[in-house]
């Protein structure tokens, strides 16, 4: 009886492994429609933010009482800082100061994007450090997580309101105030990831290979937390943009002369019935941005970290 060549079948089982073979994460991300749409909208917004001065805008803080409450598309005039009065077409109308809402909305893109991204980065940076520490240094875990529980127990918006109200409202304070309540959430996520990943056989293998703890943390554990963290980051970013708007709306956000969507809406709300465009245009931009970030996040989640769906 001839001896079947086992090796020939090993080749076969390699092929059948191809059924479950996964494309690289990046390929999957690139093919995902949510990522494509969300990403495209964000790229457009980023461009708008970058080239804001060249989009037919004027200085968003300039106002002219003669051009109060113009409807979208109306022409009016605006006085520059040098004292010159120039003709200007108010694409999205003007507010009750006589400021150009179009310019404010376009420039507001900058602030919103900065707030969103900075908040996410700040929360992630602190969350990663704290989460890694809690996950790896068991003696620190108890006390650190209790403090995190404490922060989580305080409603996020109240922390933000209190901090912004008490410090001087500036970009930095707003970002910090929005980021602080997010830190415990990131910390918990990182910690739980660390606790899961450190039980993975490949981490145990690294341990038996004599890999030092810090190296295990940075080359085995941290890279495997990236996907969920990127996803989490997008959600924080979206939440940050919204929270900034809410803070501005409540009057404890960035100084009102800084054009942010929240500020434009907060000022416009007093005349919502008569001049809904004051809220409408920044509202559209805000919703579109948050939507894009959320969609991007969902796409990333579906491709990078499908198990995360339940965590939201």
């Amino acid at each position, binding site marked *: 009886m001839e001896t079947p060549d086992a090796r020939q079948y090993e080749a076969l089982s390699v092929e059948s492994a191809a059924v479950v073979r996964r494309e690289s994460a990046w390929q999957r991300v690139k093919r995902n429609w949510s990522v494509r749409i969300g990403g495209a909208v964000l790229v457009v917004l980023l461009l708008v933010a970058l080239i804001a001065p060249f989009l037919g805008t004027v200085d968003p803080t300039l106002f002219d*009482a003669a051009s109060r409450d113009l409807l979208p598309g109306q022409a009016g005039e605006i006085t520059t800082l040098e004292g010159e009065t120039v003709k200007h077409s108010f694409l999205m109308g003007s507010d009750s100061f*006589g400021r150009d809402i179009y310019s404010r909305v376009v420039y507001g893109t900058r602030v919103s994007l900065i707030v969103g991204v900075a908040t996410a980065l700040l929360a992630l940076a602190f969350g990663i450090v704290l989460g890694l520490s809690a996950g790896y240094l068991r003696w620190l875990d108890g006390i650190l997580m209790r403090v995190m529980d404490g922060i989580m127990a305080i409603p996020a918006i109240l922390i933000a309101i209190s901090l912004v109200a008490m410090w001087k409202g500036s970009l930095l304070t707003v970002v910090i105030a929005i980021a602080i309540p997010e830190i415990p959430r990131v910390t918990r996520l990182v910690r739980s990831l660390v606790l899961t990943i450190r039980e993975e056989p490949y981490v145990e293998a690294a341990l038996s290979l004599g890999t030092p703890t810090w190296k295990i943390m940075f080359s085995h554990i941290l890279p495997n937390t990236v996907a969920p963290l990127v996803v989490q980051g997008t959600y924080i970013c979206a939440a940050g943009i919204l929270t900034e708007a809410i803070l501005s709306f409540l009057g404890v956000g960035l*100084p009102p*002369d800084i054009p942010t969507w929240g500020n434009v809406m907060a000022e416009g709300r007093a005349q919502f019935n008569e001049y809904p465009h004051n809220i409408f245009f920044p509202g559209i931009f805000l919703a579109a941005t948050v939507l894009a970030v959320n969609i991007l996040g969902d796409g990333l989640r579906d491709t990078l970290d499908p198990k995360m769906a339940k965590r939201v």
Partner: protein
Amino acid sequence: MNIARKFAVIAAVTASAAAISGLSFNSAAQDDAKVLRIVPHSNLAILDPIWTTAYMSRNHGYMIYDTPFGTDEKNQIKPQMVDTWSVSPDNRLWTFKLRPGLEFHDGKPVTGEDVVASIARWGKRDAMGSALMTFVERMDAPAPDTFRIFLREQCGFVLEALGKPSSNALFIMPKRIADTDAFKQIEEYIGSGPYIFKRDEFKPGDKAVYLKNTKYVPRKEAPSGTAGGKRVYVDRVEWNLALRDGQAQVNALQKGEVDIIEALPFDHYETVKKDPSLQIPKYSTVNLQYMARFNHLHKPFDNVKVRRAVLAAFSQEPFLRAQVGVKELYNVCPSMFTCGTPYGSPAGSDIQSKSNMKKAQELLKASGYDGTPVVVMKPTDLAAIQKLPDVAAQLLRQAGFKVDLQAMDWQTLVGRRAKKDPDDKGGWDMFLTAWQGHDIWNPIANAAMDTRGEQSGWFGWAKDDKLVELRNQFMRETDDAKKKRLADAIQTRAFEIGTHVPLGEYSQPMAARKNISGFFITNGNLYWNLKKN
């Protein structure tokens, strides 16, 4: 289940269904015609109108307290609780007799002793009151219906002080309450005024309720300002303290959920005017004044030349147009005192009224201004003055200043303006505010003209001995013509040294449902004489 109960259940279900669908909208409101629902201009927090100058507390005071004198719509002092009075020939002894029938809400009669105690407490808190107290030797109550004031020397503003219409008005409280330390808040709210405070229904930040004081005996005269008869035609007044969003206020008024909006946001003036179910009653002849105040302690506004450059830059029109917007609601007024009141005059105002941006730029160049940024504080939560700082910042920038516009809520601003520290330690250089006409209409009341440096009663701490001297003369003067001349001199000096910048006058519109009648000139927010049909 018996038939009756079944019926009750069906009725209840139907009723609640109807209620939800919005058909029986006001079914819950009890006796709507007898309840006046008012949205005040701000939140009522402090119930002691002597302890604070807050206008909300003053308005609350007028609801439940009475005053010895009132100021009528022509700014004349008229007796209110006082029936008759006399002055000794040397002008040093004033004797007052109370009118009969005055009674506190706890049923006790109002006596001279109550008045004396109330004056004493008020004299420790109120600016004008404490000015009066520097003249007072002693007070007493020789009879239950009489009180007397003995002066060290003659004083020109005894009645003006006792009948002062605005904060802190002299509200008369029972002696036991008036004996409270002037720096502690009172804890019982018993007055002799036209309304009784319903304390158990008071919910700070939600609502305050006042019931008609059926035992109140109004004066015979027609109501005028804080003087005249305080007749009440409703059973109950409710202040809605929760409704603070301007749009929501107007929505509620249009839907009839409230009857009066005390301070209608300018943005909604046209809407309300156009709405046939609403009215904008005239209630004031005296306008409010906007004002920019310097901090005289620190750079750059410790330099008079810099301050005068600002005076030149701040023409009033841009402020008024941006903040008020509605032409019929504002007017340029070159006086530091309220235009249309006795001391209103353009004396010395050329630096501001006849100036322009070019002049301002030149003045600033000549002043030696070194580019120190000007910290302008901007409140974000007071619609009535919110836009002024932005205008100020833009004008200052155009004049050549560096400006640091810092936004904060009004409460923070109030806290911060009390700080004498320099900018880098949390201080400030300029804030903008609004005054009711009566609070600034003469040199004594006008706190911005107190130039005793760090002893001044008001933030900004202007220092000028010459002005202090002029003001002292004014206090002692009793002759009206001389007083007028002194007032002109004081204003001229104030413009010279740039104590502050008056930014024009406006009238704060009030909005009401058409079915409310009986509005009169109050120069404030007084809620008697109103009928609801």
